[in-house]
């Protein structure tokens, strides 16, 4: 069976604050782009599960040609195969369109047992593509997976977080899961992996290469949602008032007065 990991190239989180609203959607954000940190947990989990139930790990990404960098990181970590989905016809797709494209590519891979995603991307923040892939392929979907308790060719048993507790749930394969940061610690690529990733070829797979894809679902035209009025959030007005006092008790008393006056207590 195959483990399919869906990954995305996203801004380095240290530089998210530098992204200008007017650059969003332009194709060049002017910041360093990396493998989405949430996706690293998904790649790592696939690599670990591969040791329990044999199977090839395939990383797939949908984006512009630069998205190859996300695939390279996955390959450097140990993933065997990688697929770059890139075509102007894909641009502007909403989450359902993106899922339609990814689902078609996954169907073309065949023999998929487990599809893994990270919780969300650090730029889109939607967490919608994972469940949408499950919807498109008619598969079970389990999110917030903190631990894979058991895995066979037929079924997966996981512990997953809900608001009030942890649920142990089993679903038949094939299935889609999104993983949380509790699940593992992603490995750093080693030198051999980095060399392999650099030598590998990543041909762009386009709409013409996915004959089963319904073109009426992709691109900006059919998109059901649109981002408008992109802006920075209102700046916090404060300059920090440092509380003075000779003792901890004095400082504490002064702060308590201020907070009661602010009516937040």
């Amino acid at each position: 069976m195959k483990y399919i990991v869906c990954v995305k190239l996203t801004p380095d989180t240290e530089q998210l604050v530098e992204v200008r609203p007017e650059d969003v959607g332009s194709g060049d954000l002017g910041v360093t782009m990396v493998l989405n940190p949430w996706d690293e947990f998904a790649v790592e989990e696939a690599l670990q599960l591969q040791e329990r139930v044999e199977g090839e790990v395939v990383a797939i990404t949908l984006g512009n040609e630069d998205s190859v960098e996300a695939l390279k990181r996955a390959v450097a970590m140990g993933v065997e195969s990688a697929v770059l989905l890139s075509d102007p016809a894909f641009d502007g797709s909403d989450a359902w369109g993106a899922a339609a494209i990814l689902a078609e590519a996954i169907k073309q891979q065949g023999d998929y047992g487990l599809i893994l995603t990270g919780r969300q991307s650090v730029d889109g923040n939607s967490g919608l593509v994972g469940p949408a892939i499950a919807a498109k392929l008619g598969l079970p979907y389990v999110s917030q997976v903190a631990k894979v308790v058991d895995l066979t060719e037929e079924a997966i048993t996981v512990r997953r977080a809900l608001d009030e507790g942890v649920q142990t749930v089993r679903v038949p394969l094939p299935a889609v899961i999104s993983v949380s940061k509790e699940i593992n610690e992603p490995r750093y690529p080693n030198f051999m992996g980095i060399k392999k990733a650099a030598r590998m070829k990543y041909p762009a797979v386009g709409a013409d290469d996915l004959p089963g894809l319904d073109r009426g679902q992709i691109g900006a035209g059919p998109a059901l949602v649109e981002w408008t009025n992109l802006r920075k959030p209102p700046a916090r007005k404060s300059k920090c008032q440092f509380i003075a006092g000779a003792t901890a008790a004095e400082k504490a008393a002064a702060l308590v007065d201020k907070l009661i006056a602010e009516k937040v207590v």
Partner: protein
Amino acid sequence: MSILVYIDHFQGVGKPVSWEIMGKARELANELAAPLVGFAVGQHLDGLAADAIAFGADRVLVADGPAFAQFRAAAYTAALKAAIAAAGPRIILAPATAGVRDVTALAACELGIGLAPDCQGLALDGAGNLLADRPIFSGNIITTVTFRGQPQMATVRPRSFPLPARAEARSGEIVPLEVVLDARATQEEILAFETTQTGEISVENANIIVSGGRGVKGPEGFAPLRELAKTLGAAVGASRAAVDAGWIPYPHQVGQTGKSVRPDLYIACGISGAIQHLAGMSNSKVIVAINKDQDAPIFGVAQYGIVGDLFEIVPALNAAFQARLGR
């Protein structure tokens, strides 16, 4: 055409976010002269349905039965789709809570409905279309999502709207919802559920959060923070450093890889204020920082700061609050 509100609950007790959304939905329904319909799925939901009417629903559709006793995404999705078919809504609103995020995504994708997730603001345009404000780029950019076609769906973060008042005198209709569950809808086997509810307030629902970072130095270091939290009726939060070190469980983590919170007061103890942490708490109304390092970035977002040892300051704060609040 109605407005449909998904009421999230735990074992029949409505989550505050459900009522916050109901209150806002009531305003929108009045603006559109549309009926407000609640939807709940689970077991033993009579009390919940009555609460929904008290909080503003005109009608409540209830999928109540043993098949729904535990959260199962596919079964709950089937129930939501049945509610959408029954209510014919133009707008669908739901809490952005674990579980409901999955169900709304699955239903919206299957039905071809536009969905704006994790929103913090809602309004209508001149033609009665939904405008949904949401943070993107981990809160560094805000966007207003607009929709094509109808219905239009949004999930909403806790504490985006105030909790409305209950009106016990309100009356409304409670209607059992027929849900057909096929084989695909019943594939999830729930083997166990361990509650983490220890009576603690969760950070995403809290008015006040006392939060600890690397400066807390260890699991025992959270003890004075818990004492202060108890005095204030607050939740205890944590930075990624404290959680990764194993000092406090992950549900307490605030930040980009944890939870987004919006309390009235956020007290950051021994937290340096990395960008990734700020991404989770910069919507707090008032931020207080306690740190030994006067150059810590957290002081750049705090209204009030104390440069000092949190192990001296936090107990002193606890004592001062107890004295002033008579607790």
